[in-house]
């Protein structure tokens, strides 16, 4: 059974107000929060649910992709804490007003934001691609899919 939830676009300065308004309508549990990088735009997205009725709302906010920051919602939704930490680590988004945003997976001080489309994935560049070999001898692909030419230029 597929249930579609409409996406509601929110301005950055109304983020907290929009999330608390969803909570007031019953959707007071954060199911997940993440970011979406389309290369042209960077969004933060949160899916909030009403556990009683399984009704849900999806809120989205476009951020400045050069200096992405947004108010943290953890004071109202404690369940957003882990998601904000992960989104901070993977997309480099600053969540303002949080007590701490310590790293989950990456080494301390590594601010490379690996889930941003602009981040060069070093391991992908350095690992030999198993698909490099060609059984036909022709049409050998030079770069594996997902590895951009500009990542390899200064090798």
């Amino acid at each position, binding site marked *: 059974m597929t249930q579609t939830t409409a996406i509601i676009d929110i301005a950055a300065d109304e983020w907290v107000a929009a999330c608390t308004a969803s909570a007031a309508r019953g959707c007071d549990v954060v199911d997940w929060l993440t970011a979406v990088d389309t290369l042209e735009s960077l969004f933060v997205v949160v899916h909030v649910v009403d556990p009683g009725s399984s009704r849900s709302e999806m809120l989205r906010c476009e951020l400045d992709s050069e200096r992405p920051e947004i108010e943290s919602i953890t004071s109202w939704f404690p369940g957003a804490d882990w998601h904000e930490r992960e989104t901070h680590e993977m997309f480099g988004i600053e969540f303002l007003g949080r007590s701490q945003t310590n790293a989950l997976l990456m080494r301390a001080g590594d601010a490379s934001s690996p889930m941003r489309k602009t981040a060069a994935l070093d391991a992908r560049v350095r*690992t030999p*691609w*198993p*698909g490099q*070999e*060609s*059984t036909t001898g022709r049409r050998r*692909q030079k770069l*594996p*899919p997902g590895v951009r030419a500009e990542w390899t230029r200064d090798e």
Partner: protein
Amino acid sequence: MSDSTPQRNVIALLPEACTSCMVCVRECPSWCISLESHVEAVSEEGARRPRTVNVLDEFTIDYGLCMYCGICIETCPFDALAWRDSFDYSSGDRQGLRQDAVDLSRWWPTGS
């Protein structure tokens, strides 16, 4: 979904069906499939020139890297890969999670 639909537990290989086309190897997002093959000439009666065929030498899936997305199975043009229900293949070391063509083909008869 019927009860007999295999779950995403293990990938079985039917080496006779595999043409070493490399489609699965290239499409795998985790880069965990590796394949080696060579070309052999097959002469057929009545044919003017021998036909060249790819012969599979080695096919390995590293289950330490596989994320069970099923893309290899979906993309194989020759139905040489399929899900099977078995999951009893844990290993105490990293190498033990690499299954070669012999290991992978053993799963084939175990399911639907």
